[in-house]
């Protein structure tokens, strides 16, 4: 009974988050498609025409990396403040603390799915039509979603206790941004550093997305499996932590 109630709350809150975000702008949901299209056009103009650094292929390569990273980093950092920002609700109802970070991730995910559809369309337009390897896409995106959720929960708990966690996490994401393979692929990484490169699960996820969308071949399943196992471990730890602090955490939030 509790689980169905919690899923109901998550569903309605996600719906509210999506509606609220679209109503903030005059063009509403249209921005979901327009924003990545504008980004693609800017990259194309800046990289292909102005800087003469690679053609449409590199633009697509970058677009896949940047948008997937934005989903990952944006979701985690927004979810990190989800418990603090909803403390006025949590002080009135006995609710598990994973609900609001999860809602925050789902709202970002809904937006990303639209962006991803645009990327698929742009890839097709630049000579990469969908192939049977597209069947791997739900698996890859599922792995990234699992990674996001597994990081979001402990981050939200830690930020509720110590606000400085958010600044530390943002710095870690910034460092990771430059070494996850957004701007380069694994062939540019020295052989001696490849092991360390793949320790970051986002490296395997970004590479897998490009394998399917640009190269039309199967993703790096070993890297995905490693990321999924790491995420499952983090998720279990995060859930344990969340249940452990469930009725203690609000005494510290907002102080």
């Amino acid at each position, binding site marked *: 009974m509790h689980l*169905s*109630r919690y899923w*109901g709350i998550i569903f309605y809150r996600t719906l509210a988050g999506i509606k609220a975000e679209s109503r903030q702008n005059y063009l509403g949901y249209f921005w979901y498609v327009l924003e990545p299209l504008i980004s693609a056009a800017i990259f194309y103009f800046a990289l292909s025409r102005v800087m003469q650094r690679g053609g449409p292929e590199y633009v697509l390569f970058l677009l896949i990396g940047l948008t997937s990273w934005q989903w990952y980093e944006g979701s985690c950092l927004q979810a990190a403040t989800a418990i603090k920002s909803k403390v006025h609700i949590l002080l009135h109802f006995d609710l598990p603390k994973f609900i609001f970070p999860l809602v925050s991730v789902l709202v970002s995910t809904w937006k990303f799915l639209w962006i991803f559809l645009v990327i698929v369309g742009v890839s097709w337009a630049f000579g990469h039509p969908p192939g049977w390897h597209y069947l791997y896409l739900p698996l890859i995106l599922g792995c990234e979603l699992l990674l996001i959720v597994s990081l979001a929960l402990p981050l939200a708990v830690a930020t509720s206790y110590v606000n400085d966690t958010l600044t530390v996490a943002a710095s870690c994401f910034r460092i990771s941004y430059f070494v996850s393979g957004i701007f380069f692929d694994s062939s540019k990484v020295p052989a001696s550093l490849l092991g360390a490169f793949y320790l970051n699960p986002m490296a395997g996820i970004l590479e897998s997305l490009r394998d399917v969308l640009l190269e039309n071949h199967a993703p790096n399943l070993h890297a995905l499996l490693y990321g999924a196992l790491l995420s499952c471990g983090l998720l279990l730890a995060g859930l344990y932590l969340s249940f452990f602090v469930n009725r*203690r955490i609000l*005494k510290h939030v907002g102080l």
Partner: protein
Amino acid sequence: MSASDPPPLISVRHVGLAYANPLARFTFGRDRRIHALRDVSFDVREGDKLGIIGRNGCGKSTLMRILARVYDADTGTVEFSRQVHIQMLSLGVGFEGSLTGRENAVLNGMLLGKTRTHMLERIESIKAFSELRDFFEMPVATYSSGMVLRLGFSVAMETEPDVLLIDEVLGVGDAAFAEKSRQAIIERFSAHGTIIMISHDPTIIAALCNRSVWIDQGRTMADGPPAEVSAAYLKAVHGG
């Protein structure tokens, strides 16, 4: 209490709770926490209308949050004799401005512990009680504060908890709705359900409750019939 009496529905024993002090991060072993509750004990029996009385800052709201299972007590115990659905009367808390009154009624009911199906079955009576008419299908962001309270109250009245926790709220909204909501609460007090109400006004406690507990500086000072407890409380307040 005789040996044949059923066990209390809620048993609160020596409960204490302290908040972290934001101005004392480095305490060097000293206890700089803010003690909201130090030693509170009382029982709540099935059907009790219990009034908790005390001055502002005596720990009443903290106690409510412990009873609503928002906080665990730092010390002492709170035991329930069975699975109990406890609900704080929180009007309009958790409403989402972008959702309609109908959607918010379902969402708020789920926050209060009910399923979506339960809320959908009662949605028309919530609409009727709230008297929001066509506004019920409009986003809550378009409501006045009085309309938000109407919707919140109407939802709360349809959730039927085992124990209702009321924090100083009796009537809400404009004059007509305030009277209607006050009557609805008073009806709750005359029904079989268990109610715990906090207030700093002894006349309200004396009028509505069959038992009263007085809390001062986080400690139970008196527990008994409302008239006696209120008299002791008033004597202390007026320095008698």
